[in-house]
């Protein structure tokens, strides 16, 4: 404090005696001086004094000096020292941590740095000012600017990230600092980049684009890989930030052959056992393992995981990891993390799974590494985390791999057991029935993973027999599990066995039948499921029991008479009630540990007590919960299911018969229809053929004979007409002929009459002549004729003047 006072004195001049200026006044004068003095030296001195005060009195300095300091960054850029003081002062003001000097000042709010940061970044231009100062080569200025950015980033990560992203070349500028030959700046830049890249994918990608991986690997290698100091750790942390949940960068990392570059990090020197592991080395290797896991994390996309896994195998990374597993003197937490990492590198990749299945541990006698790992899992003296890791690794080894699943079950089957060597199946069975609760849990879950989605192994496992006591008859594994479920009093064992049995029986009616056939199984489940205790973990037990019971109903093939599908359903409805049953099931999915386990394939249990549910079981539960509830609730008329069922059955039979009949009819009709169809087709074909022919012929006829026919027809018509006319003429002629003949006949008759008459006249005439002569009258011949005239007139009257009647002269 004295030092501070004397410092102030030199800047401000001696205070008036007897009157100590308050801190606020002092700061006010300093700020005024820093902003208004014309002499650079004065401004610089003021800044120096402000910096000195800013740790203890940051509230005052910040409240009054923020604007002035900002202004100095802009206007006094040319003077490195002044700018440096201003930057340091600002850094003190916004610092996220509490200074020693402040400890006795309880009135300063805890988040004061945060508040000043908010004020400082209100104008984004201020950040630009600091970014511009990064271009300054001066060591102090550059370092202070980086430190200030680290502080503001710590306080306001998201806001600053957005501002920097918006500044052209903002991120690139920081990346350039990584190449600074002065290590202090490079190291501070690493810290800055770690803060900057946290949770912002866009910044992560730009940093990666700016060759971050190359530079970081250069630094890591120059620092001596895992034997390097905290800088190696920082580099690895930055890489982790760049890759975590960023598939674009993971792709880049993979395509840029950076996986190969990780290899030297996992080299364990021969003499590591004697040298031991420094704590920094442990941290570094831990980070590297995290890096590997980030690439193959189950939360990445399948394509990324599988291509990374293949590369890791091909470049020998998996080999190197296995070497760490087998090396001696490796610290337990590194070993644990290596086991987890190996698990994820092999998870779902058949080649890699086979590879670790074949790794032989350098033990005596030599044993497969898997066996050695499983032995640690069921050994209660091993650390809890390590045992969890082994389980996870073993799960990954079995994951989606029917061969490794079948290999495990095979070791349990009577025919194949090789008495001399310990098999994984034996270890797990031993663990299942050991007195160590955790071993029970681990073994049950491990066994369960051999059965997941694998109907063949579920059925194979039913054949597994155990000789519990010498001389007694062997018991099947499933019966033994059921028995154990009844005997054990430990919650963890019960839960583990229930999960194992649920997985086993789900989708596998023979396993359901075997379970129902085991004595005491169902009553126990009903007892648990119907119990009413409200302890959290009790609820879980009740829910799981109800779940298994429902599986036994849903996948029941009615082969066990005493527990048929309907019998069991009735039992459940009567003893537990549908609503209670549904509630019990939903209790499971509401359980805290359920949600925790369902998140990630690896269980993240902090303590042994947290080990209850596992990820794959949660998946099974989620997929079956709906169908099971439906299956249990499906008969509403619960009181008389049997007669109703019969009724339905007969109905179904009737319908079946009817269906059969209809099917036959349909077949006949279809055949008939087919025949008709083909006939129709033939006809249509013939028809169209004929039509074609017809058309063809018509065309021929049209082209060759049309005119002639017409002529003929015309002629025929004419002739017919003529004939007709002729006939008519003929008829007319005949008729007139007839008439003529009649007339002729009449004429002849008339003529004859007239001739007769004429004869009479002649006779008379002669008589008269005679008389005349006799009377003496000379009768001239001519006179004689006279009466002839009279006669002719008479003649005329008779013949009606016809000219051809000529009276012949007598």
């Amino acid at each position, binding site marked *: 404090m004295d030092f501070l006072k004397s410092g102030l004195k030199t800047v401000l001049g001696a205070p008036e005696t007897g009157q100590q200026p308050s801190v606020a006044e002092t700061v006010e004068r300093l700020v005024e001086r820093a902003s208004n003095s014309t002499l650079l030296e004065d401004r610089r001195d003021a800044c120096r004094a402000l910096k000195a005060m800013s740790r203890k009195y940051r509230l005052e300095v910040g409240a009054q000096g923020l604007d002035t300091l900002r202004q100095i960054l802009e206007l006094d850029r040319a003077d490195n020292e002044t700018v440096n003081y201003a930057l340091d002062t600002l850094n003190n003001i916004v610092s996220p941590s509490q200074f020693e000097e402040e400890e006795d000042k309880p009135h300063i709010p805890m988040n004061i740095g945060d508040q000043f940061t908010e004020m400082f970044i209100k104008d984004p231009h201020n950040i630009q000012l600091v970014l511009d100062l990064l271009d300054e080569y001066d060591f102090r200025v550059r370092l202070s600017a980086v430190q200030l950015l680290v502080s503001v980033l710590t306080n306001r990560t998201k806001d600053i990230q957005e501002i920097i*992203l918006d500044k*052209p070349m903002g991120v690139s500028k920081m990346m350039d600092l990584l190449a600074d030959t002065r290590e202090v700046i490079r190291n501070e830049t690493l810290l800055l980049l770690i803060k900057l890249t946290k949770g912002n994918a866009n910044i992560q*990608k730009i940093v990666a*684009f*700016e060759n971050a991986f*190359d530079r970081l690997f250069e630094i890591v290698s120059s620092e001596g890989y895992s034997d390097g100091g905290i800088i190696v750790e920082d580099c690895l942390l930055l890489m982790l930030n760049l890759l975590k949940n960023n598939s*674009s960068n993971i792709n880049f990392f993979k*395509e*840029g*052959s950076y996986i190969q570059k990780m290899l030297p990090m996992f080299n364990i020197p021969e003499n590591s056992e004697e040298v031991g592991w420094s704590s920094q080395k442990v941290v570094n290797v831990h980070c590297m393992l995290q890096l590997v896991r980030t690439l193959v994390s189950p939360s990445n996309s399948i394509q990324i995981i599988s291509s990374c896994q293949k590369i890791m195998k091909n470049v020998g990374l998996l080999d190197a990891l296995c070497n760490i597993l087998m090396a001696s003197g490796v610290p337990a937490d590194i070993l644990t993390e290596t086991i987890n990492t190996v698990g994820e590198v092999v998870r779902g990749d058949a080649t890699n799974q086979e590879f670790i299945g074949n790794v032989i541990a350098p033990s005596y006698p030599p044993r497969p590494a898997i066996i050695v790992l499983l032995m640690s899992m069921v050994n209660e003296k091993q650390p809890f985390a390590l045992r969890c890791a082994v389980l996870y690794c073993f799960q990954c080894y079995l994951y989606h791999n029917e061969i490794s699943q079948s290999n495990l079950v095979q070791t349990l089957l009577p025919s194949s057991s090789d008495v001399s060597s310990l098999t994984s199946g034996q270890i797990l069975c031993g663990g299942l029935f050991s007195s160590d609760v955790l071993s029970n849990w681990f073994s049950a879950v491990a066994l369960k993973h051999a059965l997941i989605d694998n109907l063949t192994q579920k059925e194979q496992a039913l054949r597994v027999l155990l000789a519990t006591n010498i001389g007694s008859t062997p018991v099947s594994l499933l019966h033994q599990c059921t028995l154990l479920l009844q005997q054990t009093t430990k919650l963890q064992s019960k839960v583990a066995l229930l999960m194992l049995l649920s997985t086993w029986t789900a989708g596998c009616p023979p396993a359901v039948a075997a379970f129902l056939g085991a004595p005491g199984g169902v009553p126990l489940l009903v007892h648990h499921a119907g119990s009413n205790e409200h302890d959290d973990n009790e609820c879980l037990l009740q829910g799981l029991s109800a779940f298994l019971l429902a599986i036994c109903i849903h996948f029941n093939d009615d082969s066990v008479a005493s527990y048929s599908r309907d019998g069991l359903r009735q039992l459940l409805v009567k003893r537990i009630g549908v609503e209670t049953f549904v509630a019990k099931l939903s209790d499971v999915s509401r359980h805290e540990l359920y949600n925790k386990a369902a998140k990630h394939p690896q269980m993240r249990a902090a303590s042994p007590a947290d080990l209850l549910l596992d990820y794959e079981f949660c998946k099974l539960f989620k997929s079956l919960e709906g169908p099971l509830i439906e299956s249990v609730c499906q008969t509403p008329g619960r009181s008389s299911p049997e007669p109703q069922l019969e009724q339905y059955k007969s109905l179904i039979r009737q319908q079946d018969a009817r269906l059969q009949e209809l099917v036959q009819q349909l077949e006949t009709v279809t055949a008939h229809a087919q025949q008709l169809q083909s006939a129709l087709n033939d006809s249509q074909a013939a028809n169209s053929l004929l039509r074609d022919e017809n058309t063809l012929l018509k065309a021929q006829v049209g082209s060759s004979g049309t005119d002639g026919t017409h002529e003929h027809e015309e002629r025929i018509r004419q002739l017919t007409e003529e004939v007709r006319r002729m006939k008519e003429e003929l008829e007319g002629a005949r008729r007139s002929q007839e008439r003529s003949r009649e007339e002729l006949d009449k004429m002849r008759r008339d003529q004859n009459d007239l001739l007769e008459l004429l004869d009479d006249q002649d006779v008379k005439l002669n008589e008269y002549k005679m008389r005349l002569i006799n009377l003496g009258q000379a009768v001239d011949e001519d006179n004689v004729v006279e009466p002839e005239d009279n006669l002719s007139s008479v003649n005329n009257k008779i013949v009606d003047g016809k000219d051809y009647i000529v009276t012949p002269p007598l």
Partner: protein
Amino acid sequence: MLLFSGVGKSCLLLQFTDKRFQPVHDLTIGVEFGARMITIDGKQIKLQIWDTAGQEAFRSITRSYYRGAAGALLVYDITRRDTFNHLTTWLEDARQHSNSNMVIMLIGNKSDLESRREVKKEEGEAFAREHGLVFMETSAKTAANVEEAFINTAKEIYEKIQEGVFDINNEANGIKIGPQHGGAGSGGGAPGAGGAPPGGCC
């Protein structure tokens, strides 16, 4: 790659790296990385390609990728006149922030949609001539010219390396010598532009 929203950059990249076409693609957020090995002059070259978002909102992010890119594909959509009209802005932006030697290729994408064409091929050619770019029309859907577009860009970069225009020891050029194949390089390439409304597929 830098480009317009919805003009089909991501589909071009997908067609090039994975040889497949995906008609419905999420809008590119920020930048996505893709890579493929090609052979030029008997040398294995790994192309590293950054596919940038075309939207205006990502423009400041996109700018960070100009520096350090050896080549860029500037893509417009032949069925959308507005994407062609924005080219000048993008080109200026790219030239301003990039290495002056950056190879830029102009791409008219969606050449399969001839019936909806709004920008004539001649116009694209003229624009390219005027600004000294290489021009090509492609279809990410039918894969027409997609290989050529990327490989020609890579060839141009390769020639510039041979001529000594690019200093292969300076990483800021976006070129690295691969360890296992003598003389292999990787060209970070990216064309960009944006501003068009979101939505639409390539």
